[in-house]
């Protein structure tokens, strides 16, 4: 039996924790849904069916559809090199991978404006070749890529490190090829960590605001992602419509949390 506190202390601490989480997490979550349906289900659906809302959904799906697979490939490659081999500078490489997490989203957008914008390094060259990156879809994809770089790698590195190299080595000794070893041995071992990384990466890709806001230019129906569309609606006092569209993102967050909880439960039960 573990030593513990008197019941009065226990329940006071539980009450403080529940109140704090209720105020900071449950209340905002409930508010999104309540505000979204403030003008009824009809207005809710109308806000989602608007052409600009649909265009925002399409652009968000496109940006995430490009950023997530690329960062999955990167994450697997980086985790393979870091977890399965020894080489000098490994710690520095891991810090570099985490770097986008410590950069402000606004600065992430800024660095691409300075590179590809009209005043930027490549601006004149891009203009001469009639390519627009900033205030256009490519800029939004790049900004999304930048902020989501670490997610998959970060989940996979510890999982692969814990797994070690024995199983893969055994497969090789038994005559399996490199890809065969990867698909039949490595992937089944890392599948839950991979799923976890993918859903976190996707949630951030679809919800990114600061970085995308800097490079988007807010051209309605063309360069507005879902979060930017929410911002425009909110700033124009279409509060219920803003919350209706925001509820899609809140739903995405809830699904992300549910999958995350499921994966954690699965990993615990497998061990």
């Amino acid at each position, binding site marked *: 039996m*573990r*030593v513990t506190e008197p019941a009065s202390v226990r329940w006071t*601490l*539980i009450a*403080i*924790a*529940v109140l704090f*989480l209720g105020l*900071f*997490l449950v209340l905002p979550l409930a*508010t999104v849904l309540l505000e979204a349906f403030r003008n009824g289900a009809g207005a809710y659906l109308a806000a989602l069916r608007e052409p600009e809302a649909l265009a925002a959904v399409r652009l968000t799906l496109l940006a995430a559809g490009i950023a997530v697979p690329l960062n999955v490939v990167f994450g697997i*490659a*980086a985790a393979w*090199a870091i977890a*399965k*081999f020894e*080489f000098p500078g490994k710690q520095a490489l891991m*810090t570099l991978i*985490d*770097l*986008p997490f410590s*950069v*402000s989203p*606004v*600065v992430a957008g*800024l*660095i*691409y*404006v*300075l*590179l590809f914008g009209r*005043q930027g*390094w490549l601006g004149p060259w891009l203009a001469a070749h009639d390519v627009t990156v900033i205030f256009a879809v490519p800029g939004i994809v790049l900004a999304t*890529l*930048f902020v989501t*770089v670490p997610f998959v790698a970060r989940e996979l590195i510890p999982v692969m490190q814990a797994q070690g*190299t024995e199983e*893969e*080595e055994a497969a*090789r*000794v038994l005559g399996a090829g490199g890809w065969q*070893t990867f698909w039949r041995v490595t992937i089944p071992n890392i599948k839950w960590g991979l799923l976890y990384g993918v859903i*976190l990466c996707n*949630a951030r890709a679809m*919800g990114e*605001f*600061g970085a995308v*806001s*800097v490079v988007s230019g807010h051209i309605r129906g063309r360069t507005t992602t*879902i*979060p930017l569309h929410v*911002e425009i609606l909110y700033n124009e006092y279409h*509060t219920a419509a803003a*919350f209706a569209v925001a509820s899609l993102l809140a739903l*995405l*967050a*809830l699904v992300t*949390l*549910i999958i995350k*909880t499921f994966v954690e439960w699965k990993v615990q039960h497998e061990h």
Partner: protein
Amino acid sequence: MTADSSTRSTSPAADAGLRVAAPARARRRTILPGFGLTLAFTLAYLSLIVLIPLSATFVKASTLGWAQFWRVVTEPRSLASYRLSFGASFLGAAVNAVFGLVVAWVLVRYRFPGRRLLDALVDLPFALPTAVAGITLTTLCAPGGWVGRQLAPLGIKAAFSPLGVVIALTFIGLPFVVRTIQPVLQNLDAEIEEAAASLGASRWQTWRRVILPELWPALLTGIALAFARAVGEYGSVVFISGNMPMKTEITPLLIITKLDQYDYAGATAIGVFMLVVSFVLLLVINVLQWWSGRRAA
């Protein structure tokens, strides 16, 4: 960099034998393929997406000249934004240090109905897009909102004030503190507490003298992580802060304002200043994590 893969033997069995013969060698030969390929891809990808754009920003800033850079970075409006950004981030992290510690403790040590649900919800600020958090907290804290209405009679202005910024940054930082303390609490050896109790220490003494010292590195790491995230945070703050220059304007917003006015030099200077701050914080966090790792080992 391809040394390992290029010296790889063509016969896996021979290599495996070699491994058995010399298992203690630090850089043993491996029979696994793909080292050169994956490392090259990792470095190329990171360079393209992260390192080259970041370096270009520093090069761009160096064309400004030191005098101009310093003038922009130390303008009264910039200084006011640092005071708000750093001050509010610190307060938010401090609130999370206290309540996050209580939350982590309660979630790890006690069993009560709804515990699993709350535990899962702690990650909400990670998963909820910042713009959604921003408009929601603003609606709650605005004078007509549910929280704003309770605070207005007390003369407290929760939205469009520095307090609003603190509220948003507390929301954003919450999971960092809870999630860094939780595993340390979970792995804490029950025996040391029992030993303290059997030697006659009161529960409070045990907590203060035995448990808290074990938690310090993780707590500080959590605070630093929450602070670092809050300093750069934009989406959840811009709606609730009111964005008045000199009063409620955070530093990331100042960058956007300068960009909107085509003041690229000014935006670059502030951006580089923020980058340097991020790198210093990253270094501090790495040192703290190394310290907690050593404590755990």
